[in-house]
């Protein structure tokens, strides 16, 4: 034993960790925004009456949800170039995380769409809105408000998945922590600080989502 905690090295390299955290957040924001668009489209497809639309959407969600994301990350970075698709490591990671979030958010949105009463669509039709107007002005806003709680946990879990970018040497938080760990051997300190950064960020995301939820809550 005889291990004395000494955070000096970690504090000296703290800017690397913060830069890593900023990159993690950037990766998460871009991927989740793209993923939300994919998820919304797929959710409408999943709830469609037409089998030709619903089946491919189901296949996409089932496929992505049953694959480990690490396999997808490595596949996109190492195997896609063989098919002539050359993406740099950040691009390939964002593409994978966006596709991955798309599948998970589609499930969240689908549950939200199913919870919207039919009467609202009928009311929209009655006042002469087109189906597209009904979706964009009635269904989507109401659905988003309903799914905020489950969306919050999905977003947090997707943010944590950005740590996998470390495996293809994207210098985000986990990669920076591992680098400091290997260079300084201040093992315990490095991982305490790195996981504290993750925990705090996750708590902040949760607080932000709760704030939005409160702001948008139906006034009673």
């Amino acid at each position, binding site marked *: 034993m005889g291990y004395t905690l000494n955070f000096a090295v970690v504090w000296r390299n703290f800017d690397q960790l913060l830069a890593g955290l900023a990159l993690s957040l950037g990766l998460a924001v871009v991927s989740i925004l793209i993923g939300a668009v994919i998820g919304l489209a797929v959710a409408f497809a999943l709830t469609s009456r037409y089998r030709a639309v619903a089946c491919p959407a189901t296949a996409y969600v089932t496929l992505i949800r049953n694959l*480990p994301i690490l*396999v997808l990350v490595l596949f996109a970075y190492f195997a896609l170039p063989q098919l002539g698709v050359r993406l740099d490591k950040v691009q390939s990671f964002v593409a994978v995380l966006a596709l991955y979030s798309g599948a998970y958010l589609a499930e969240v949105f689908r549950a939200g769409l199913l919870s919207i009463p039919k009467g609202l669509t009928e009311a929209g039709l009655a006042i002469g809105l087109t189906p597209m107007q009904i979706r964009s002005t009635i269904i989507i806003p109401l659905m988003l408000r309903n799914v905020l709680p489950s969306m919050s946990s999905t977003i947090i879990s997707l943010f944590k998945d950005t740590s*996998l970018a470390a495996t293809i040497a994207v210098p985000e938080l986990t990669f920076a922590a591992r680098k400091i760990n290997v260079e300084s051997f201040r093992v315990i300190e490095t991982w305490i600080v790195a*996981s504290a950064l*993750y*925990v705090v960020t996750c708590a902040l995301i949760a607080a932000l989502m709760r704030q939005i939820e409160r702001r948008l809550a139906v006034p009673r």
Partner: protein
Amino acid sequence: MIAPSFLDQLWLARHVILNGLGITVAISLLAILAGSVLGVFVGLSLVYGNRWLRLIVRAYTDIIRGTPVLVLVLASYYVSSAVGVNLDPFSAGVLALAVFCSSHVGEIVRGGLQAIPKGQTEAAKAIGLTFGQTFAYVLWPQALRQFLPAWVNTAAEMVKASTLLSVIGVAELLLRSQEIISRNFMSLQFYFFAGALYFLVNYGIERFGKYVERKTAIPS
């Protein structure tokens, strides 16, 4: 030299792949078993513990759930050797996954127990059952029915998370596939094949989860 075909390479690598798949299954099973035992304790502490126990266990679950699994795996591997507990990569990885699993199972158990109406406990008290009897004959069977489907899904999560052990050098399916690829450069084919195996295992677990959900649903 004639370029070797994928099927030839696959046949050559059959033992290595099967071996990797076996290790993946072993990791997942051990993590689920240990994680569930610990998780039931976590869940019970969150519901029935006194204030201090609740506080400590809540902090434990929140920290674990706020940290990416990859960070848990890396931290478990590096920290254990730094404090003089020499865990081999396999044990360190299983430990990290079990801890991760326990926080999930803990939340599932807590949710299941808290979903039972208070009247049940009061009724059990009224007919003179002790707390132990109430728990064993009234609360636990109902909670079990509630959380079994979610628990099966956690198993699929564990199989997916087991891929992260490849990062610390555990020769499970993904690392074995990477080794094969570094010999024959067929990254497209072998990543695809590994993905297909993971998909089959997880899809099987998912179908089993749906089956359990149907079986445990309370007939209405």
